[in-house]
């Protein structure tokens, strides 16, 4: 497994090694980047991609199955589903990013504090993380919605708090691993002060998995947020947010399968693509070892 590959020794080239930067970019990964790219453009400039106005009601065209004119079909008001999926990207992506940012902030504070402090404080924070774990994300979100009312902000807070303990535990582990590593010991032996070691060595290294967590987290957060909207407790239906579309389409499920399948596909593809990219970044960060 660890046997070094035999590399043919050739003349040294001065060419810039482009293939090196792209190594590991498999076709699946290229597809993942394409999907994420598509949805990011959709979120920023939906008018560029959408063939129709997402709110344009046209009752004569209601509930049409996918055709060339409407590749993803039309909904009960004759609105183009493709255009609605494209316009929905902004809301979904915004919720996903905001919830993940909140979640990672909570996780960083808890994880770093636990990792750096002594046994007692670590124990207390660890218990706290465990308490958060006892609340499944969906239930916590439902509790928040019940108390504070449905809405984008409630959704972001609920998903952010609900997904925080998992990340907190990971970051704590990372901080502990770095704290006990050889180079931190070496820095200590060199007489560097503790705050300096924390600032220069422990924090930067403990932050490394953050990019990965962010990528994976956004996909997860979008899935949760859409789930709540699907239950009718998130973003409300006239909005083209993906989960809200699923909620609105549920009534027509026996006649118009595309109303459920298509926005759902957007969620699944987006989440899968983000996961693939996150895993790829993780592999690269771990430094070439498979």
């Amino acid at each position, binding site marked *: 497994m660890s046997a070094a590959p035999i590399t043919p020794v050739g003349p040294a080239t001065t060419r810039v090694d482009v293939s090196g930067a792209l190594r590991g970019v498999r076709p699946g990964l290229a597809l993942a980047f394409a999907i994420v790219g598509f949805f990011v453009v959709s979120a920023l400039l939906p008018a560029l991609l959408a063939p129709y106005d997402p709110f344009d009601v046209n009752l004569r065209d209601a509930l049409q199955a996918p055709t060339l004119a409407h590749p993803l079909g039309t909904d009960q008001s004759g609105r183009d589903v493709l255009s609605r999926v494209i316009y929905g990207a902004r809301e979904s992506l915004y919720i996903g990013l905001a919830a993940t940012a909140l979640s990672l902030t909570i996780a960083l504070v808890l994880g770093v504090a636990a990792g750096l402090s002594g046994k007692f404080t670590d124990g207390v924070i660890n*218990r706290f993380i*465990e*308490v958060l774990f006892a609340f499944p994300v969906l239930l916590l979100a439902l509790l928040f919605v*019940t108390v504070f009312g449905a809405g984008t902000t409630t959704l972001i807070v609920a998903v952010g708090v609900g997904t925080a303990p998992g990340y907190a535990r990971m970051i704590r582990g990372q901080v502990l691993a770095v704290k006990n590593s050889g180079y931190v010991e070496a820095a200590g032996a060199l007489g560097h002060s503790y705050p300096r070691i924390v600032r220069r060595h422990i924090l930067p290294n403990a932050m490394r998995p953050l990019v990965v967590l962010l990528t994976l987290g956004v996909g997860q957060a979008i899935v949760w947020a859409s789930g709540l909207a699907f239950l009718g407790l998130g973003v409300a239906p006239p909005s083209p947010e993906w989960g809200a579309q699923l909620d609105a389409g549920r009534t027509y*499920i026996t006649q118009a399968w595309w109303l459920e399948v298509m926005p759902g596909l957007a*969620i699944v593809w987006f989440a*899968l693509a983000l996961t693939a990219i996150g895993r790829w970044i993780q592999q690269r960060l771990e430094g070439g070892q498979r």
Partner: protein
Amino acid sequence: MKSVALKILGALVVLWAAATFTFFVQAALPGDRATLLLNQDSGQIKKRTAAELAPINEEFGFDKPLVQQYADYLGGLATGDLGISYQKKAPVTEIIGEQILPTVWLTLAALVAAWVIALLLTLFTTRRSRVVKTLGSGFETLSAALPHYWLGVILLVVFAIQLSIFPVEGGTSLYGLILPALTLAIPLAGFLGQVTRDEFENVLDEPFITSARARGMGDFEVRWRHALRHAVLPAITLSGWALGALFSGAVIAEIVFARQGIGQILVTAANARDVPVVAGIVMVVAFVYVIANLLVDLAYRIVDPRIQT
């Protein structure tokens, strides 16, 4: 033995903290609760007179000091009292008790199905030909990423509406349990499968596997009798952890398939802002989660006696 006592104490602390958290989230309810309650009942939004509010405040204890309410809440929990529903005016424990069985069956059926699928995948696709291996792990990655609500809808559209193999509305029949259970089981199977696969691959490199093979044991037997036992350990721990996700999924599956159960109550209560019901269910789930993980933890010590910290 001392460590077992500590574990139990730890679980109690977690439960107390969870109850405290739930209480304060409830206490943060904006506006006057008695007004909200009356307005929800009548479907109006207006200011209520003190005479209207007084009996409600009296009944639910809203006018007591917060510390007193907190003590009452904790005391209630300790004796199995989860409060009174704002909407139905019935004890929350009663409401939950009436509907919990279908949800428990669904969750258990899903857990069993997930394990069966995950084990079959691990046993038959790990370390096989490239194609089989890719198919196996590809299925795991894909299914682990499927949101319950979407998978449920797809299963419903394909098997109930298009093919008419299953009823569209499940009811409580055993037959109607299959699609909802699969909705929960498939993503969980993908998740468990990924974990057992990793572990299984590591175990297959162990010397005792080589020695079993050297003794002439067949490939399937080696996998079944030796490797699997080691590979399932981490997934057992994760099953305790997965209960939460499973319950969340159950809520969604019940809505998708219009099944009776906690999910229906929960969503109705959340829409009606019936805080005690939602908080009560949250506490029950947290309780089950803590107990399940405590049991997994203790079971682990029995399965693997090396852990004695």
